[in-house]
């Protein structure tokens, strides 16, 4: 018994339809070839924007250094590292338009300090740190509020932290005489140390000659290298703490 022979099915599409389909397919492939790289770039950009931290987003909002074109251009003195061994600070003169308002002026010089020198190895502050706010109290205390990156991104150590604080204090001293002392906050909060070493609970003397620090002669010498420190006012040692009698 022979099976009935199957006739090969005729293609359901007629010739003109097939032609248009193939043409469409070719155009689609060409279009994909052209737009795929562009689409890829756009996706990467979107992903990068998504990855931006809250810190970076805030930086975008606050970063513009308040520059008024009408501000007089003056030679500002900024303190960065003198060499890559991170040993001492050295002044660098930069011509900047600086406001006469002490708060604006402080923001301008501190933001320039944060932006860093040409040689990135000589910077004293982490590149992703942001000055969130600056206030000047009537007694001459400047309060600088930095983003958390100042504490988290700075290289941990006595030397690096001290240089960071000194660079700020000495830059303010050189450019904003109205600031007598500097108080550093991190994200609006007082913290015990910058990154585990340098004390941030008090204020740093900026302009020692007019500051209220009762500096003795030895301290005056030290202040030229390291910013003198005013510890927070405190009561006498509480009973629960171990104390020593004052040495008289």
């Amino acid at each position: 018994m022979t099976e009935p022979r199957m006739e090969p099915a005729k293609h359901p599409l007629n010739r003109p339809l097939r032609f248009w389909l193939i043409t469409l397919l070719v155009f689609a492939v060409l279009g994909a070839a052209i737009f795929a790289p562009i689409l890829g770039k756009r996706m990467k950009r979107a992903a990068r924007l998504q990855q931006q931290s809250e810190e970076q987003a805030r930086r975008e909002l606050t970063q513009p250094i308040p520059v008024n074109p009408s501000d007089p251009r003056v030679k500002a003195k900024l303190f960065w590292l003198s060499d890559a061994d991170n040993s001492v600070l050295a002044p660098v003169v930069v011509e900047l338009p600086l406001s006469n308002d002490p708060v604006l002026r402080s923001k301008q010089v501190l933001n320039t300090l944060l932006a860093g020198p040409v040689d990135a190895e000589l910077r004293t502050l982490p590149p992703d740190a942001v000055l969130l706010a600056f206030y000047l109290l009537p007694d001459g205390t400047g309060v600088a509020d930095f983003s958390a990156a100042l504490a988290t991104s700075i290289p941990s150590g006595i030397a690096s932290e001290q240089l960071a604080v000194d660079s700020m204090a000495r830059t303010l001293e050189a450019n904003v005489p109205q600031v007598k002392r500097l108080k550093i906050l991190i994200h609006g909060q007082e913290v015990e140390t910058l990154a585990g070493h340098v004390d941030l609970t008090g204020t740093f003397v900026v302009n020692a000659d007019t500051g209220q620090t009762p500096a003795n002669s030895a301290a005056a010498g030290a202040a030229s290298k390291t910013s003198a420190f005013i510890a927070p006012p405190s009561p006498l040692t509480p009973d629960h703490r171990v104390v020593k009698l004052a040495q008289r």
Partner: protein
Amino acid sequence: MLLPVGNLSSLRLPFISGIASLFLTGAVTALALKSPSQTQQPAVASRAPFASSIPVGQGGTSVTLGSPPAAEAAQGGVNMVVLDPAHGGTDLGARGTGGIQESEITMEFAAEVRRALEQQGFQVVLTRQGNDNPSFDDRSAIANAQRGAVFITLHIASTGLPGTVRVYVNSDLPPVTSPNGFIPWDRAQAPYLGLSRKLGDLVQGMLMQRFKGSPDTAQTGTIRQLRTTAAPAIAVEVSSVVVNDRSDLDHMAPGVADAIARGVVAFKPFYVIPGTGGASP
């Protein structure tokens, strides 16, 4: 056989002489059996039993005391050295690219420094025994509870020229006025700044001789740990955790330890404890 009663009085003198000579012989034997360091021990005695734990500080921190001090240490004002291996616990401190952690290295350095100081006859106390992280105040409290102590906190930097060591003393603090005889806790270092500077310069001088490129005098810094310490206090920071090979740091430990011990020995004559006839700091 009975002795005549009349002879008893004649026996009294030899009897007393015999007892006296027995006593003297015993005393001489006891002295001879003592170690040389014990025989030279002066009147200044240690204030706590050796190798025992005592609770100090507001947190009840336990410390283990070291070996007995030798004569030369006890003669000066410095009875004890409080060594502080910085960081610990969750606070790792500076971290290098090769997995080097400051909190680990400071413990190893502390062990080396302790050995060197004990060889010089000092009693040594560590602020932490293992991988814990006492607060700044708890660490200070250990030194503040002692009389005649010096405080040395050990750090490893994440910057600086590798192979160098820097000594820091606290920068200026407002003078302490203490009408009732107490030092404010938050400025406990203030009366000791001069002594700390002396100790710092001496130790830095020793370190400079061993580690070229190190400064010749101590630097000043606003160091939280030192501010609440009521004793001559310094911070020693070794550069750095960014060395390629950890053994570079390990090789520095004996030199650092020896320099610190020599510095403390040199400092001893300058630290006369008030109340024992000396001058105040």
